[in-house]
């Protein structure tokens, strides 16, 4: 009798997985965040889809089992006195099977996550001052300075000009150098799939290469005080020619104040601390 329960649950799990898995991979997968605006974002979408796919059989099994148990393994209706079930205290083969399958899944996820992380230059996350995985070829550095409560951006290869707008060229490998002047902030460029904490005195590097032109949202993702909720921005990805003319215009515009800026550095002496809410 109990083996027929096992067969039915196994069959339902297989059928359920066969239905849900393609839906998850082909219907839900392409809609996983953060979209495909950049290389690292694309790699995160792949990652999210793979995670979903690995979880699907386990989820289907547990839900099928739970549903089946609640339907079949019930106290018969109208039974007044309590009758004990069979005194089963374990079943070595199924325990081993569970342990083996979860171990395989977990090790696969860890190895897969590590290869994705290393293959795609940190897949958009802040990798500290000197990341292990770096892109080859020429990289355009852009410094992101978090301060209470806004981000500003410096372009060291263009005379260290500092602007309040973030504009990056399409198809170029960008290195965001994220740092802070006061509290801990986090630079989150959602559509680009970039997030890197801004720590005072620390240069936190994240790589990204935008795939097409357009805009993206920037929000602070680490609680940084009173106006944290208002610390957002919109960045632009533009083609190379537009970028060159934009940055040239900024250099002219800010030339009169350039001499007051501190010299470009990977990080700056943090502001003194004030009592501020």
């Amino acid at each position, binding site marked *: 009798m109990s083996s027929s329960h096992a067969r039915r649950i196994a069959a339902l799990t297989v059928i359920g997985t066969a239905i849900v898995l393609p839906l998850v991979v082909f219907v839900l997968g392409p809609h996983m*965040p953060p979209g495909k605006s950049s290389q690292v974002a694309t790699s995160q979408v792949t990652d999210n889809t793979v995670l979903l796919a690995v979880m699907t059989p386990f989820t289907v099994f547990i839900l099928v*089992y739970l549903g089946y148990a609640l339907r079949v*393994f019930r106290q018969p209706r109208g039974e007044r006195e309590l009758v004990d079930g069979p005194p089963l205290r374990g079943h070595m083969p199924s*325990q081993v099977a569970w342990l083996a399958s979860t171990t395989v899944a977990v090790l696969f996820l860890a190895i897969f996550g590590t290869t994705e992380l290393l293959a795609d230059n940190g897949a958009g996350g802040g990798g500290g001052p000197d990341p292990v995985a770096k892109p080859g070829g020429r990289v355009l550095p852009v410094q992101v300075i978090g301060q209470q409560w806004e981000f500003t951006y410096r372009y060291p290869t263009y005379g260290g000009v500092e602007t309040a707008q973030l504009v990056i060229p399409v198809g170029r490998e960008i290195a965001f150098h994220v740092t802070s002047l006061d509290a801990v902030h986090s630079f989150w460029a959602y559509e680009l799939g970039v997030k890197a*904490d801004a*720590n005072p005195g620390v240069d936190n590097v994240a790589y990204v290469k935008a795939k097409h032109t357009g805009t993206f949202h920037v929000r602070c993702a680490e609680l940084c005080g009173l106006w944290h909720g208002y610390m957002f921005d919109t960045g632009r990805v533009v083609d190379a020619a537009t970028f060159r003319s934009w940055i040239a215009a900024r250099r002219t515009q800010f030339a009169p104040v350039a001499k007051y800026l501190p010299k470009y550095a990977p990080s700056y002496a943090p502001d003194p601390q004030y009592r501020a809410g």
Partner: protein
Amino acid sequence: MKLRRLLGFNLLTAVVLGVAGYYVGWWLGHQVKGPSLDYFGDTGQNDVALFVAYFTGVVGFLVGLGFANYPVQRMLGRPPSLREKETEGIGRYFGLCTDHKVVGIQYLIGIGAFVFIGGLNAMLIRFELLRPTHLAWNGNNYLTLVGLHGTMMMGMMTSGILGPFANYFVPLMIGARRMAFPRIEALTFWLLMAAGTILMTALAFGGFPTGWTGYAPLNEQANMGMDAYIAFFALVGLSMTLLGLNMLATVITMRAPGMTWGRLPIFVWSTVATSILMLLAAPVLISTLFMLALDRTAQTGFFNAQAGGSPYLYENLFWIFGHPEVYILALPGMGILLEILPVFARKPLWGYRLAVTGMLGIMVLSFLVWQHHLFVSGINADLRPFYMLSTELISLPTGFIFVCALGTLWAGRIRLTVPMLFALAWIFNFLVGGLSGVFLSDVPSDVTTHGSFFSMAHFHYTIMGGLIFSFFAAVYYWVPKMTGFEIDERLGKIHFWTMFVAFNSTFGPLLVIGFLGMPRRVVTYAGYLQGANDWVSVSAFVLGASMLLFIGNLVWSQVFARVPAAANPWGSKSIEFQLPSPVPVHDFDRIPTFGSDPYPYGGDESGAAPAPRPIITPARQTR
């Protein structure tokens, strides 16, 4: 006569002495002068005075309760008063009482009250988020609400199950009449009450903007409300350390004859695992907060980058405590789940050793994963693969808990009582919580989900969906045993279904909102997310209403209806249900002996023969 009762060592005296101690400390603190202390002088804030005031206030509170009586009388060479052993009357609930059953009920009411306040804060947060722009609270008040909600919940609920239920039932389950250190047991409770009150005073000092994590250097810029956070969490940490110590000592030394480690009820095992975590993790929190208090008062620079310190240091220290902390919250829930499933499936616990291994495995691994909270912070970036692996490895022992729960249901005779419904909901909620956790453990995925509503929804699924649901399972399962009065079953079922549906309708969409790019702890959000946020807010209000329904049911059943509970309403074979309801003051007349595993449903471990039950002689009822 009545007036006479109000005098003496009780809650009233404690409050009077606590307030008096507070003002004495405030005055004393203002006498301290020094150049480094004048650093923030122009803001009119005096952190030294506030810390001293909190300290003397807590001391006054404890003296008023009578915690000094025993040591003072001992030092004077007098025989100690046994007043705290007083066996009768409602008065013992309002003072120092060393009866583990009284402490359990004190915990249930006391923690319940503070968690209710924490829940109200959540309602106010969700009210603000009805609109993407400013609605009701300014930035500072909103962040204070966020901080009070998170800190209150994370602080109070550490003892949410161990406090009421382990204090009450662990001695009974292992066949002891009391805890190893009864006065320390009472102290853990009253420390929490002092701590909760102190946290509420943050409102009087401008609140604090840091959320429950209290990251540096924001915690050093913050107003004096931050001192309330520091004092609160340090006291909670002290209470946790003592609670864990007491529980461990009790389980190690006070087990009755025949109660071998292999026969411990699984709830006691979860208590042991949690207690070890408390004992090892909470002191880290206390010392971190001590460093923070020094930074704020004596102008040391541990966490101040400008003075050569590092905010990373705080993040590291905080999460070395903080990740074990979330398993301090999760493990007791797993214990409740596996304790309740056998009763209502009429089956022995399936895979007892696997379940114990799972709990101990979680306990050990939880110390090795803390930097997954810092995946994008730039700290130790080369170690990210290690923390990714260790984090994902935790799903193996957690999987053991799942497979034991599912195995217990196999071929069972399931009864869907209210405790069982809450336990089954744990399986579903924790499944969602665990699966969402996989995204956070994977570094490339975490880049999007870190610090977003996704991670917030994830830990609400594991903590609220795991801990709070199992807390309610324990309430419906055990409170009739504790008070002697039934809880209305029909209202309980309505409570369950509204809570379960509203919970999922609140936090399910929040996972999606996080995926769509909404960060945590923001007072404004992108306009296109308003529809989803309004849905979540309305669901959260329904969730809040389900809590009111529960409180109404509890008050109605326990105060007005008062239907006497049977000794064993669930047909449980656990020892506490072989005692009368409520449990007599002296528990057993004779210490019981145990002859089988705790789940002899359908026969004991040797075969199908009816199991020998523990030999118990309950104490005679005294009221």
